[in-house]
């Protein structure tokens, strides 16, 4: 190879993990692109943690600026949506060698538990990772109802 910048196999075996091949199988099966149905061209990866006080949701939104991100909550469903776009100036007059990154709009929803304080949800964007902190309400005291048995 004399010229250019080219892909190199990082000693990656062609047959990767079983999960990947399963993903591929499903991708092929759903080749009609069901995501278009949900108005999303790609889906960001999401992590969810719980430390007792808060629930943390992290989303991989690499390359997306704060102004292009939207977080909404409705009926205990949290939706992260936005758009990943290349600067127009950059894409023009350019020969594409490898294009693997997913561009365009996305929308991903996760259902969250009932006991989250909706008013005090915090969102932070750092290094391409969106972190949402959802504080939990103290567990409601059990209302004891005494029933006299006659």
């Amino acid at each position, binding site marked *: *190879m*004399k*010229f*250019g*910048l*080219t*892909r*190199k196999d*990082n*000693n*990656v075996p062609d047959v*990767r*993990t079983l*999960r*990947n091949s399963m*993903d591929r199988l*499903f*991708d092929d099966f*759903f080749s009609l692109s*069901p*995501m278009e149905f949900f108005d999303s061209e*790609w*889906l960001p*990866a*999401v*992590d*969810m*943690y*719980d*430390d*007792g006080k808060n*629930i*943390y949701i*992290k989303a*991989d*939104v*690499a*390359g*997306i*600026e704060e102004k292009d991100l939207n977080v909404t909550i409705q009926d205990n469903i949290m939706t992260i949506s936005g758009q990943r776009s290349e600067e127009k100036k*950059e*894409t023009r*007059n*350019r*020969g*594409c*060698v*490898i*294009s*693997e*990154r*997913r561009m365009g709009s996305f929308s991903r929803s996760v259902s969250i538990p009932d006991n989250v304080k909706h008013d005090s949800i915090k969102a932070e*964007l750092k*290094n*391409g*990772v969106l972190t949402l902190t959802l504080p939990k309400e103290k567990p409601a005291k059990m209302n004891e109802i005494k029933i006299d048995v006659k």
Partner: protein
Amino acid sequence: MATDKNLTYNENLNKKVYVPVADIYETEDLYSLKLEIPGVPKENLDISIENNELTISAKSSIEEKADEKCRYSEFSSMDYKRSFRIGSDIDRSKVEAKLENGVLTLLLHKHETVKPRKITINQIN
């Protein structure tokens, strides 16, 4: 559904190493390489060129706390590593790197000699 995760395993460490997705564009003057490495701060990034091989390795700074229960995980606490072969048209001393919003942009400039040159024709009457 269609997650674009390519996982490899570092056999020595038995830790997840992810091959990040990339975009490469070529112009007359340079190659622009973009890699998605969410969760990586500047100081955890290592870029090296050795024997026509450009290697980018990065470590995510997302830590898992002991008291945090992981409910669901698709991407956190991963290491990233990817190599590319670079040709002799690329000037190794002129590589620029920029990290912004989890996307690493590398600009690899071409040698002056391989850039297209416009030759002016002088008309002699």
